[in-house]
């Protein structure tokens, strides 16, 4: 953070912070470039990369064909040979097209080569539902990535973090996935000018509390905060943790919180069954067993694809109401 230029407090949207983060990287590192579908003139979905093409030109902000395997391959091959690419997979749902390149090449190359190569590549992508984009444009598939040794995975939830994590990711000599969320692009936060890093692998305690811990991934942090506020009057003081990074995962921050609160819930937007929440719960019960007054609860999406219709999608995506209900259940 020390690098951030001293300046007036300045509010920026998540969207603008994404492009500012990439901009800092391109300014800082000659061998960095941004490549992906429609990242150029169009600035990608929601205009998250707006302005970069005009500033840096077609040599450094590169439109690719609709070829996700090719895009990840570009990131692997270029990062192995002296570049520091940022490659964009528009929606996380499209990762299925390039899971081989992610899993068997990007994540394993350094290990398979006995450490003789480093892959300083950043992969940016958008996840989550809420925009009625249906089953193939709304998924949260971070659990696939968390299970892959060799990559890091962060899920920034605000403008400050997204800029700082993009910069940290692109300075890291490992492949880092920056999983962004499509519902919060307009949200504002204070964002310093200039380059700064948010440390990869550190959770953020976004609300201090003494009675209950909610560990969240991605956008769910806001639902948890909302739920926590609803318990304020009843005198239940809920701590909310934004995990921020799932690989590495900040076990320590989570465990410390639970040692204080004795009750915990994990909330993510991904399908609950087989989701990353299981890993978190397993760690908590392992490392804080004697501190727990109740089982660790999980809230995730039900076991179905993401439905299109607003009436169904509203019922599908976890929200403050479901969290409140579950907390009440646990306290009953």
């Amino acid at each position, binding site marked *: 953070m020390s690098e951030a230029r001293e300046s007036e407090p300045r509010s920026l949207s998540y969207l603008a912070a994404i492009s500012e983060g990439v901009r800092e990287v391109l300014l800082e590192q000659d061998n960095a470039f941004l490549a992906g579908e429609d990242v150029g003139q169009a600035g990608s979905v929601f205009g998250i990369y707006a302005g970069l093409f005009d500033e840096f030109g077609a040599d450094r902000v590169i439109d690719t064909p609709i070829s996700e395997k090719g895009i990840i391959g570009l990131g692997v091959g270029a990062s192995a040979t002296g570049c520091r690419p940022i490659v964009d997979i528009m929606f996380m749902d499209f990762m299925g*097209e390039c899971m081989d390149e992610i899993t068997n090449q990007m994540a394993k190359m350094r290990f398979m080569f006995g450490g003789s190569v480093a892959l300083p590549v950043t992969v940016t992508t958008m996840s989550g539902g809420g925009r009625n984009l249906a089953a193939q444009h709304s998924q949260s598939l971070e659990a696939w990535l968390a299970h892959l040794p060799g990559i890091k995975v962060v899920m920034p939830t605000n403008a400050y973090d997204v800029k700082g994590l993009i910069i940290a990711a692109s300075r890291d000599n490992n492949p880092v996935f920056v999983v962004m969320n499509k519902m919060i692009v307009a949200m504002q936060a204070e964002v310093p000018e200039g380059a700064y890093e948010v440390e990869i692998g550190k959770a953020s305690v976004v609300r201090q509390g003494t009675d209950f811990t909610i560990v969240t991934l991605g956008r769910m942090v806001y639902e948890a905060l909302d739920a926590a506020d609803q318990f304020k009057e009843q005198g239940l003081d809920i701590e909310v943790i934004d995990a921020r990074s799932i690989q590495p995962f900040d076990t320590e921050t989570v465990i410390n919180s639970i040692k204080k609160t004795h009750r915990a819930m994990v909330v993510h937007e991904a399908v609950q069954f087989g989701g990353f929440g299981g890993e978190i719960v397993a760690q908590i019960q392992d490392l804080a067993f004697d501190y727990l007054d109740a089982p660790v609860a999980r809230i995730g999406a039900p076991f179905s694809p993401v439905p299109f219709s607003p009436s169904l999608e509203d019922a599908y995506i976890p929200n403050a109401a479901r969290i409140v209900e579950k907390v009440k259940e646990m306290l009953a």
Partner: protein
Amino acid sequence: MAKRPTKKNLKAMHLNMVRIRRFEETAGRMAENGKIPGALHLYVGEEAIAAGVMQHLSDEDQITSTHRGHGHLVAKGGEFKPMFAELFGRSTGYCGGKGGSMHVSNMKVGMLGANGIVGGGPPIAVGAAFSNKYRKTKNVAVAFFGDGASNEGSFHEAANMAALYKLPCLFVCENNGYGEYTPQANHQAVVDVADRASGYGMPGVIVDGMDVMAVYEAAGEAIDRARNGEGPTLLECKTYRFYDHVGVRGMGLTYRTDEELALWQARDPVSAFEKNLIDLKVMTQDEIDSVYAEVNAALDEAVDFAEQSPYPDPSVLLDDVYWVGGD
């Protein structure tokens, strides 16, 4: 040995083109009025392709579609009411509101779904074509896909398998010159996607996708070949979308010039065909007008139907994830 369309064919194709055009214009308006949730990719400008190809298909022939799929479903026999209901996210929609525009489908007419995944269709069409051959039917499967989609690995694998097994399959590339906002020249070094056909061992044919007669004839030949066990064809239709990538006006980007749009609009497939029909004395202007009147009335009814239909009850959420017996 091109098959000439009968008068009946011509009228049917015209009806389909008008149905698509008016469906899409209506859907666009509804989206702009906030009545259609999510993303809407409209087919306006490309009607000749769906109408020309589908004229050769029965309900037992299958198609796979794209994110820009309403036109395909309309031409394949989709009905307005359940289509609009689906786009509106209502329980009376073809997918009970679970799919929406990007997944609208109707298995009864052999429409294996719009598809939100670019390049998602071709491997599925190959599976259907394989099934047609395996089950010793005479049916064909048609994969529609865009110029942008032709760069996905899925297209490559599907095309190779179809040619290898000589499947009753047709690959229809709707080359509208753009993948989203990226012009073709920025996503592939070739001008003609049809050039890829020979690499799989199948014929590649280029046709004017604004000319329904041309599409009809080229598709007819290819489909005949397919039905006769002579294998797949890659049929590239040169076309243009009159609206933006998403919705009507999209994000307001300036990736296409007004001149370019005007040039293509001057070749509007619907009005060109109508002029033709009048010249050929297949239809009079009055007859054409009454087609519109009929279609418009049906659309009004369908929109009403959709608007009055209920949203699906949350209790049905977990239905349809698995088959649990019954159907």
